[in-house]
Every structure is written in structure tokens, then in C-alpha cells.
């Protein structure tokens, strides 16, 4: 760097300080420190980067200018879900996770970072209540990774390779899981019937070489699996493990999978107090019973309570640290690293604010809005629901009867500032509603699709007549 380069982020660019430090270590120049970097590897020129904006006001103007090109779901009416959901984030959640103490901390000991340990232990504990399971990890990256790891755990525990996939899975999630486990496991798809698992079909494929049955509920179409208990029984009968991928948002009213026999419950916490962030804020949970067979296969950190030198005082620490790659390198379970701790704290604050009553009311609201949206859209001539399952938050419609394509609906409605959903195939649209989707919003969507359908039918009729 040149001597006149002084930057607010780099205090020792102050020329006098820099010189004093060089003098202290007896170096003629900073160049000396790079003696081990061979000359032929030295770049020898300035990086070709855009001209910097060293004045904060200029940086702010530049970045704000770029972001101003975005049109958010505050400005567009969005029925998009498909892995990232638009839920309300209470202000207290943002206040807590934006606290500098949490935002900028990393990996201190349980003493000076007591707050972090307690906040994450509480996250584990609050999730545990919602899921009715005794063990929850410090968040891993996302629901994809959580499910991949959950299945890998089942493989390691059973020593088997076959995994029966009995639900419709988000394609990107399937892609991630497959690439993650394929060395160790084989995924076999058991096609769903009317939106949920084909229990009979599953039974016919189960055997003592099956490591796990993988259920997604709600599925990619938002269908809630109604036969979980039967699936659990069937799986357990052959010594297979039931791995359930889920979104915890509904468990204020819905029976948690653990109470229906699930062994490993995993999924994403984005719905619990995280903004959409263009899909950039996910965290994965893995929940199991308080059983060492399962716990010792978990790669993530687990914070637990411990006694201290002061009688009656409760401290925190890492449970079974020797499982981890930090301790054992490649002999650990998968690996552990920086993942999504702050999002876990956020989810904990969210659940503490919502309480049992809030989660109950929210679950009911989501069921009601989903049902209402299904009713309204299915009332459009030519539009039919994709299946008869119970749906939470997401469902599909088939628009082919109205002479429409899913992509065509999206394209047409975007012109009105509406994102009507995600096309799953040529004629199937996945629609998502949340507590932020009001009745009026749903009515607006129905009216817009209804108008399209009417226009399409009119055109078709006209064409038929012509």
C-alpha cells in the first residue's frame, strides 16, 4: 500500500504507527514478512477491482442505489413459498440478533460467552418443546443439510444402504441430499398417492436392508402426511429408522412427528423468525430422543447444562465434544463448523415471544387461510386442486382445465404485481399463503386467476366457434 493510504477499518495504516511497529520488529519493510512466498507466485500488480468508495457516504449511496433496483414482496403480492417463507418477524427478534454482542461473537468459552451458550441451549430447548423431542442440535446450515445428515445418521446406525422416499420432496433438497449421501446410501422413490405416502407401496418395498424411510411433511406441495404412525410402525418392524423432514411452523396445532413414531426429525427454521433474505437465511435442526445411539451420530455441537464450582449454579458446555471433527478430524461424525447459530438464537426468541398460545393461533390461522385459498381458487371454473390431502400453507392447483399453463399464469400475473406461485410442471402451480397473506390478498389472487381463466375460456370458445 502507499504511505498516504489511511483507512478507518485499518488503524495501523496511520503512517507513524506503521513505522513504529516495523522498527519494533526490526523489519525494513512489510515485504520482509513475505520472504517465504516465492517470487514467481507474487502477483506483482494491483488487483483489478472497481475503484473503491472509501468515504462511507459514497459506499452507502452506491449500495443503496443497487438495492433500490429490487422490488420486494412488500411491493409485490407474493404467493411464493417452495422452501423460503414469508412470515412475520417480531421486532424483538431483530433487536436481539442485531445486538453487537451476539452478531460479532464467535467461539469463546462458556465463561465469557455464557450468553451465547445459554441462548443456544434455550433455542434447543424451545424447539424440543415444539417438536416433543429431548435433543435438538445447535443449528446446522439448513433443512437440506439437516435431512441429509439425518439420513446419513440412519445409515451409520443401521449399517444399511436403502432409503425409501415416500413423500414429494423439494427438488433442490433432493438434489443436495442425494449428492451428500450417495456414497453411503441409495435413495429409492416410492411414488405418492393423492399427495401423501403410499403406505401399501411402502410396505411392499420394506425389508431388513432398509436403513430409513424418509417422509416430508408438509411435502413440497404442502401436504401434511396423515399416515405417519402407520409408516413408523412399518419401518420399525424391519428395523428401519423413520426420518421426517418438516417445517416446524404448524406444531402449535399439529401433532409433532415424534409423537407419531418418528426417530429423527429434521428440517429448516427459516419460518421461525427469519426474514426471507432472498433465500439467504436458513438453518437446519435435527431432533432425536435422548438416546446415545442417535446422539453420538450427530455432527453438530450440542450445548448442555452442567454444574459449576458454586453449588446450585448452572453452567453450560459442549455435550459429547469427542463426537466432532473439531476433536477427531476425519474420525468425527461428518464435520462441524460455522453454520447458523445466530439464526438459532432468532428462532429461540421467536418461540419465546409466540408462546404456546401464539403457536396455536398461528397454526390455526395458517390452516384456515390455506383452506380458504384452496376454496377460492378451486371455485374458478377449470381450476382444480392437485390432491385431497390436508394442506398447511402450500397447495397446488392444476390450471389446465382453464386452458392455462402455470408459466402463463405467472407471466400474466407478474404484470399486475402478483407472484402467484411456483410452477411445478406445465400445469401445476404451487401457491403459498401465510399469516401475512390476508383474505383480501387471497381474493385478489383468485380474481386475477379467475379473470385469466375467463379470458382463456372465452378465447377457446371463440376459437371453437370460429
Amino acid at each position, binding site marked *: *500500500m502507499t504511505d498516504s493510504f489511511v483507512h478507518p477499518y485499518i488503524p495501523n495504516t496511520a503512517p507513524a504507527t506503521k513505522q513504529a511497529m516495523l522498527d519494533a520488529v526490526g*523489519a525494513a519493510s512489510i515485504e520482509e*514478512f513475505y520472504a*517465504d*512466498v516465492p517470487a514467481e507466485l507474487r*502477483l506483482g500488480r494491483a*488487483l*483489478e477491482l472497481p475503484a*473503491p*468508495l472509501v468515504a462511507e457516504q459514497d459506499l452507502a449511496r452506491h449500495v443503496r442505489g443497487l438495492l433500490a433496483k429490487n*422490488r420486494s*414482496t412488500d411491493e409485490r403480492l407474493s404467493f*411464493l413459498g417452495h422452501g423460503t417463507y414469508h412470515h412475520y418477524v417480531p421486532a424483538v427478534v431483530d433487536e436481539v440478533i442485531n*445486538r453487537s*454482542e451476539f*452478531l460479532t*461473537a*464467535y467461539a469463546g*468459552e462458556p*465463561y465469557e460467552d455464557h*450468553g451465547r451458550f445459554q*441462548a443456544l441451549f*434455550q433455542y434447543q*430447548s*424451545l*424447539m*424440543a418443546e415444539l417438536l416433543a423431542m*429431548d435433543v435438538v442440535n445447535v*443449528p446446522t446450515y*439448513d433443512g437440506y443439510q439437516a435431512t441429509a445428515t439425518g439420513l446419513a445418521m440412519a445409515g451409520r446406525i443401521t449399517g444399511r444402504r436403502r432409503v425409501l422416499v415416500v413423500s414429494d420432496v423439494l427438488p433442490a*433438497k433432493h438434489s*443436495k441430499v442425494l449428492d451428500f449421501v450417495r456414497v*453411503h446410501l441409495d435413495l429409492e422413490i416410492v411414488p405418492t398417492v393423492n399427495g401423501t405416502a403410499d403406505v401399501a407401496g411402502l410396505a411392499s418395498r420394506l425389508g431388513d436392508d432398509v436403513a430409513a424411510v424418509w417422509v416430508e411433511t408438509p411435502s413440497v406441495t404442502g401436504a*401434511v402426511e396423515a399416515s405417519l404412525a402407520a409408516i413408523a410402525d412399518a419401518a420399525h418392524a424391519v428395523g428401519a429408522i423413520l426420518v421426517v423432514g418438516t417445517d416446524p411452523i404448524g406444531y*402449535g396445532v399439529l401433532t409433532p412427528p415424534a409423537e407419531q413414531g418418528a426417530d429423527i426429525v429434521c428440517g429448516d427454521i427459516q419460518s421461525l423468525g427469519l*426474514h*426471507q*433474505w432472498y*433465500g*439467504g437465511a436458513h438453518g437446519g435442526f435435527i431432533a432425536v430422543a435422548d438416546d*446415545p445411539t442417535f446422539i453420538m451420530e450427530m455432527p453438530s*455441537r450440542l450445548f448442555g447444562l452442567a*454444574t*459449576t464450582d458454586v453449588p446450585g449454579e*448452572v*453452567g*453450560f458446555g459442549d455435550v*459429547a465434544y469427542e463426537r466432532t471433527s473439531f476433536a477427531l478430524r*476425519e474420525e*468425527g461424525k461428518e464435520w462441524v463448523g*460455522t*453454520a*447458523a*447459530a445466530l439464526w438459532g438464537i432468532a428462532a429461540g426468541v421467536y418461540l*419465546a415471544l*409466540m408462546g404456546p*398460545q*401464539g403457536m396455536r393461533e398461528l397454526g390455526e390461522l395458517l*390452516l384456515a387461510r390455506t383452506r380458504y385459498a384452496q376454496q377460492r381458487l378451486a371455485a374458478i371454473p377449470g381450476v382444480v386442486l392437485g390432491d385431497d390431502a390436508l394442506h398447511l400453507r402450500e397447495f397446488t392447483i392444476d390450471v389446465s382445465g382453464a386452458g392455462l399453463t402455470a408459466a402463463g399464469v405467472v407471466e400474466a400475473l407478474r404484470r399486475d404485481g402478483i*407472484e402467484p406461485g411456483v410452477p411445478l410442471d406445465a400445469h401445476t402451480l404451487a401457491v403459498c399463503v401465510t399469516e401475512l397473506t390476508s383474505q383480501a390478498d387471497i381474493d385478489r389472487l383468485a380474481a386475477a386467476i379467475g379473470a385469466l381463466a375467463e379470458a382463456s375460456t372465452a378465447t377457446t370458445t371463440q376459437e371453437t366457434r370460429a
Partner: protein
Amino acid sequence: WDEPVIFELSTPGERGVLVTPIEPGVRDAVGDVVAQLPAGLRRAAPPALPEMGQQRVLKHYLRLSQENLGADFNVDIGQGTCTMKYSPKINDQLIGVPQLTAMHPLQDPADAQGVLEITWNLERMLAEISGMAEVSLHTQGGSAAIWANIAMIRAYHEANGEGAERREVITTIFSHPSNAAAAKAAGYEIITIHPDAEGYPDLAALKAALSPRTAAIMVTNPEDTGIYNPAIKQWVDAAHEVGALASYDQANANGILGITRARDAGFDVCHFNLHKTFSTPHACGGPGAGANAVSEALAPFLPGPRVVRDVAADGSVCFDVQEAGPLSIGAVAPFHGVVPNIVRAYSWIMALGAEGLLAAAEIAVLNNNYLLKRVLEIPGASAPYAEGRRRIEQVRYSWQELFEDTGISSEEIGIRLSDFGMHYWTSHHPYVVPQPFTLEPTESYSMAEIDEYVGALAEVAREARETPEVVRTAPHNQTVHHTHHDDLDDPERWAITWRAYRRKYPSTGSGRRFGEGASAAVGLAESAA
């Protein structure tokens, strides 16, 4: 504060936040949806979440925050290899807007031009910084990026029909353990190379280990010791000679920004941690963000979806989203990666430019060598390996001499250090360096702050000799006291959730004092941080 576990603060009937009511029109149309649930799907008992007023939830977590030592509060140079640098507040402020928080990843790309442009620009900037052809920003942390590295390597060999033969990955003991662990998770056998007597990576040992069975070498450089491998190009060349790929863990590239680049040494793939070198905050352990940079040959294997830049005939530019191609390893994470950190890292680079990145590297290295000199002045401290030579951005030190003199371990010294408002970590296991501690000052701390840190370290070392009991029984000024680890390794005793704790310790007597009325009133008396 002596803040109880949150479940102890519950009062029946209190509410923290209310849910918007179901509109009468909706209720009329759908009826009682909960009652309509099949019995098996209707939750029997509500989840035992606490019931608390909003301010009490807030107060609880604000107090916990004050019991936590963020990098903004201490001289955070003790978490060596973690690159605790200043995360500028302007970047947090810039991202906290609906134009980012309220964006859905499947919106019309026409409505997402800002975030797509930033993502694309950051990819290009990191390509220039690494010398690589293409960059992906999908992963949420450094280890996840390492996974993506090995997943691409695996896919590459499979695409070339060599997947079955190439079953080994070679790494070094001073490379981050996730290289070994992720490669193992991807199905590889791991070979770990130890350094030579001087602490330099052992090229001869590498050559002996390489074979047609080698899929890749996966190394860090400079290693966790702060030693730069001067033969790094020979390492890469040797790997290439047997048909293996070379993967570079640049999680922490802080000392060599603008000095030397991964591709210039011949690497095929590398990754950065945006939360280390590029300043995004560590967030108590994530979300971070990883960037995978690859050569032209490996570009088809990058995860999807990709952000692409289209230039129309009239010269107008627009950004679009493209699904992964046939050779891609597919999705490694939802959508486009940790967007808040992508924007933060972009902003950080834009605030510094080429000269600023170079300054960051050079000052980080200056700080490190200054710190090295000051630490070595403390009796009992040493810096094993490469004696008398300069280091790059960090050093793994040893208290072995002090331990031999006093019996006080590095871990004990670290705990006592927390009483001074500082901390450090030892290192990853195994402790190849005995009684290790690892310091990395980055470019963010001033000379005065480094002096302050060394002063505290020297004081604890003095205590270890003169009043060892003070060190051994630390901490003395924290919200919590010396904690018993044996509780945490025994399945009969561990309690990973409050739910499990209540089940395992049904009496209030054993190991708890919560709920003793005025106990929380001792408050400030035990406050820390």
C-alpha cells in the same frame, strides 16, 4: 446478571406477541379448522413454551447479550485462524432494508436486479482475487465450502471415469480439520502429512503419499502455524502429475490478499470464508458464507443455480438466474447462498478496493509479526517451528515451557484471561503443538490494542508462576463459575434441553438454584461483559 433459564420466567396467560386474527370471512368459509383435523393430526397438549410478556422476553435476551463477549467489545485477536476483523456497521445498516430482507428467491429476476448484480459482481471480484475462472457463493460456511470443493472434485473424477479408482485425499495436519472430515464424509480415505522438523509442509512425504489412487490434495496455506509453504507450487504440480486435483483451503486468505493467488500456484479449486477474510460478522458461529472458486475445467461442476449477466443487443445489461447444468453437483444449499453476507462482503471490498485489500493483508501481517515479537518476550511462551522466521497472518504458540514450570495448562490460562476481558482459543485437536494457543491479530487492531492484549497475557503468565491458584480456579469475574465437564460426557447426566433436564433431574435440589425468589436480584454483583 444472574438470568434464569427462560422457562423459569413463564407466567401463565402472559403473551409476547399476538397473532393477527382470522378474518370473519375466512372463518365463515372454512369453519373450525382445528376441530376438523383428524384426531391423529391434532396436537393433544400444547407445547410447553414459556408464557412471557414482550418486555420480559426482550430483557432476558438483552441481559444474555451483555453476558457475551462480542468481537466489537474486546481485543479479539485470540481466536487465531478465525480472522476476527472489524465488521463495519455500515454494512449491517445497508442490508437491513426490505429491498433485501423481504425478497423471495423465486421472484421475477426483473424484480431482483440489485441483489443479482451484487452477487455477480462479488463473484467476479473473488475470481480476480483468487485468479480463478468462476465463483459460486452458495455455501453457508467454510466447512460447507470445503464440502463443495470435494464434491466437485468427486464429480470431476467421476465424469472422467476415474471415480472408482481415486479413493484417497491427502491433507496436512495443520490444515483445517474439515478438509479431512468433509473428504471422509464424501467417501474418501484420508492421508495426513505432518510437517518437517522446521514446521514446513513436507514435500517428500507428500510425494511418497501421492499415487493414482489420489483424488486430491486439500491444504491450507499459510497453515494454522502462520507458516507459508514456499514449495506450494511443487505440491500442486506433484498432485497434478498423478492426475489428482489440488484444493486450496483459503478460508483465511487475509495475509495474502493481493500478494499471491490460488490459481497462480496452479490450484484447481479453492474457497474463501466471507466471514473471515471478507469481514462478515461471525454471528456466534454462523451464518458465515463460503465462496468456491474454480478453474475453467472445474466450472461445469459448480453448484446451481447460477447468476448470469446478459448483455442485450442495445448494450443494456440484465442479470438472470440459470439452473445448474448437467455436470453440476446440483444444489448444495437453498437458492443463492447467505445473501446478507454476500452484500456485506461486497460492501467491504468496495470500501477498500485493490489498495485497501493489499493494506489489509500487509497490516495484518505486520500486526502478526509485531505480536509475535511481543509474545515471545513473555517468559514461558514460545512459537514452535521456523525459528527466527517471519510468519504470515497468525501464529500457533505454545505454553509448554510455562506448563513445565508451573503445571498451569494453556486452557487454564485462556480461562483466566477472560477475567481481563480478553480471550483466546487453544487450537484444534490433536495438540500437535503442546499447550497451544493461536493468535491472529488481523488488520483491525491498533498497536495500542495489541499491547493491551499482550499485557494481559503477560500478567496471567506472571500469575501462573506467582499465584497459580488464582489461575487454576478461574474464572473469577464472570457470570458463571468453573463448570464441570464430566456432566457433559455422561449420557446418564447430560441434559441437552430443558425438557430433558426436568426429566432427568426431577427434584429442584440437584444442581439448580433457579426460582429461589430474589436470587435474580444479585444482578450486577456478578455481571460480566
